[in-house]
């Protein structure tokens, strides 16, 4: 199941959904109680405690056009050959900073051709892992390699990996153009390439200005241009949509998908599940430096929500008898409504049709990704909000 298929049935998704409709223009949908535009990064505060998908009644059904998700992904020609490029492998990866263990025995693979989301609460070790991959920090134990090699051993690293780090990595006194040029020159990449990328990320008019004067969004665009400079097989992007406006977020989302569709490895970190839901195919979730999940987005939600199907029917009791089975459990919150787990919506619908039962509603209830994420990482959040927030959440 692709992410977009998932969205067709997703309940209670983030109150800010940016969709690309058949018209080819972005469609913004908002909760009516949203009270204006949420923050550009989609970080909308939720008032309710995650309830494993049950709490959200007003299901949002998004009808999306068919997408190219299932079409075969072309392998990149230039790097040719049968060998797969851009595989990131972490084995027992551990990093201590003094007494504190930032990354704790991580094992994961990141594969080319898909967008892999790297998800975790703030302070969970995402940025440290990125630095370890790039050899900026040395692991305390374990290894992380790209195609079996340490980053340091690449003769032309910018052609292998393009990185955008969360902390800014630009001299504030240098212009965007000269910043890119200086990095390009280490690999003998020419000025034409620098100009191409300045245009691509939309910094043409400010390319000669000092990077210190850039807004957060412009800084991110410069970082993305830096990452793409060497036309790399692998992209490591730490919170790329930070500080971007909705248009910029939309742009980067498409960029990441395009890069993955070209057969590149795209490893992108975020602390926002909603952002990952729209971008990633696969998820690596960490909390307190430890691996929590390494799974497809669909499986991630499935696992967290238990695959509940809500049925509303005037013949609910009869249906309850018909669907009963060893792996099926049925709960009924109110008369005429059943929450069935253990069967798919399709199966429930077919059983109902076979016995001529009228259905008024048949909804696969899935936890929103945000809820699934919070459920999974609840124990592993580094910095928890105070009690006041908890009470508010409980009351809502």
């Amino acid at each position: 199941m692709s992410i977009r298929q998932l969205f067709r049935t997703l309940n209670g998704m983030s109150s800010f959904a940016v969709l690309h409709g058949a018209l080819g223009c972005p469609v913004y949908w908002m909760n009516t109680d949203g009270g204006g535009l949420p923050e550009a990064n989609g970080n909308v505060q939720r008032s309710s405690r995650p309830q494993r998908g049950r709490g959200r009644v007003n299901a949002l059904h998004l009808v999306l056009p068919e997408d190219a998700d299932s079409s075969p992904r072309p392998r990149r020609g230039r790097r040719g050959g049968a060998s797969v490029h851009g595989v990131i492998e972490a084995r027992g990866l551990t990093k201590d900073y003094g007494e504190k263990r930032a990354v704790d025995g991580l094992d994961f693979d990141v594969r080319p051709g898909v967008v892999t989301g790297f998800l975790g609460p703030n302070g969970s070790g995402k940025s440290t892992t990125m630095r370890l991959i790039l050899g900026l920090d040395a692991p305390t134990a374990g290894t992380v390699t790209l195609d079996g090699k340490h980053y340091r051993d690449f003769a032309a690293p910018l052609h292998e990996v393009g990185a955008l780090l969360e902390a800014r990595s630009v001299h504030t006194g240098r212009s965007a153009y000269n910043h890119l040029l200086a990095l390009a020159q280490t690999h003998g990449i020419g000025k034409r390439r620098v100009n191409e990328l300045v245009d691509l990320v939309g910094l043409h008019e400010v390319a000669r200005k000092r990077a210190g004067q850039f807004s957060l969004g412009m800084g991110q665009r410069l970082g993305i241009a830096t990452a793409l400079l060497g036309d790399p097989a692998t992209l490591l992007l730490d919170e790329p949509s930070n500080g971007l406006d909705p248009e910029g977020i939309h742009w980067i989302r498409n960029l990441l998908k395009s890069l993955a569709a070209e057969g590149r490895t795209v490893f992108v970190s975020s602390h926002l599940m909603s952002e990952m839901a729209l971008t990633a195919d696969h998820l690596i979730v960490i909390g307190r430096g430890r691996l929590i999940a390494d799974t497809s987005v669909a499986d991630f939600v499935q696992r967290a929500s238990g695959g509940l199907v809500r049925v509303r029917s005037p013949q609910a009791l009869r249906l309850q008898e018909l669907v009963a089975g060893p792996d099926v459990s049925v709960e009924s919150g109110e008369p005429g409504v059943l929450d069935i787990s253990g069967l798919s919506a399709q199966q429930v619908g077919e059983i109902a049709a076979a016995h001529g039962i009228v259905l008024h509603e048949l909804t696969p209830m899935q936890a929103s990704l945000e809820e699934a994420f919070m459920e999974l990482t609840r124990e592993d959040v580094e910095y928890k909000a105070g009690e006041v927030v908890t009470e508010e959440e409980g009351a809502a």
Partner: protein
Amino acid sequence: MSNIVHVVAVPRLATTGKVTQARVAVSEWTKLHSLRSTRWSLAVAVILTIGLPLLFATIVGSHWAHMAPRERADRHPLDIALAGVNLSQLAIAVLGVLIITGEYSTGMIRASFTAVPKRLPVLWAKLGVYALVVLVLAVPSVLIAFWGSQKILAQHHILQISLTSPGVLRSVLGGAAYVVVLGMFAMAVGAIVRNTAGGIATFAAIFFVIPPLMNILPASWNNAISPYLPDAAGRDVFSLTHGPHDLAPGPGFALFCGYTALAIAIAAVLLVRRDT
């Protein structure tokens, strides 16, 4: 059927190249000249190196008639010609520290080490490019300072000295050599300390604070230690006259280069080992 993914086409790169020391040097040259702080520091260094001797020559020339014989005997044309070096060394040292600590304070170092993960080529390139730039600016500056101050003094028919006299050319060019090596020393300190304020303070302590403190020690200790400090050893190369305890220009400058090499070696080891 429409496609949700609107392709953002990243232009492909036709050719790929490896990281080489020469390419890293070109990159460091771009980094160096594209910063305002570099241009200002170097301009100040050149202006001081040339301007101060001209100013001193003018003052000495105009006051010569009123100066006591003892005072006249104390004036040396080479001291006037190289007076600027004493001040411009500060600009050269601060810039040397800043070239490397500026990368740490802004985070640029992460981009630099991502592009050149072996790291040492970056250090070598920074040292080489900076040394070359300082050399190219310092040699003409000290020669102009020498000729300029001599021209001014010649108008008063005083303190004339020839470049061909023993030790004069060595001293004049030694002034340039001193700031070149000093810049590298400062850069190594910057790479070790990785912090602008700390780097400049460390440098100032070694060159400006510790030497005068030696005067507190008993004279025998002072005479045994002071000539071997980096500051005194480095100065031997642009001093025409040497005291009984001073090192000769050759050994003094060699020792100064040795200190610098040691600082660079420590910087190189730490650069490779430390997290960024």
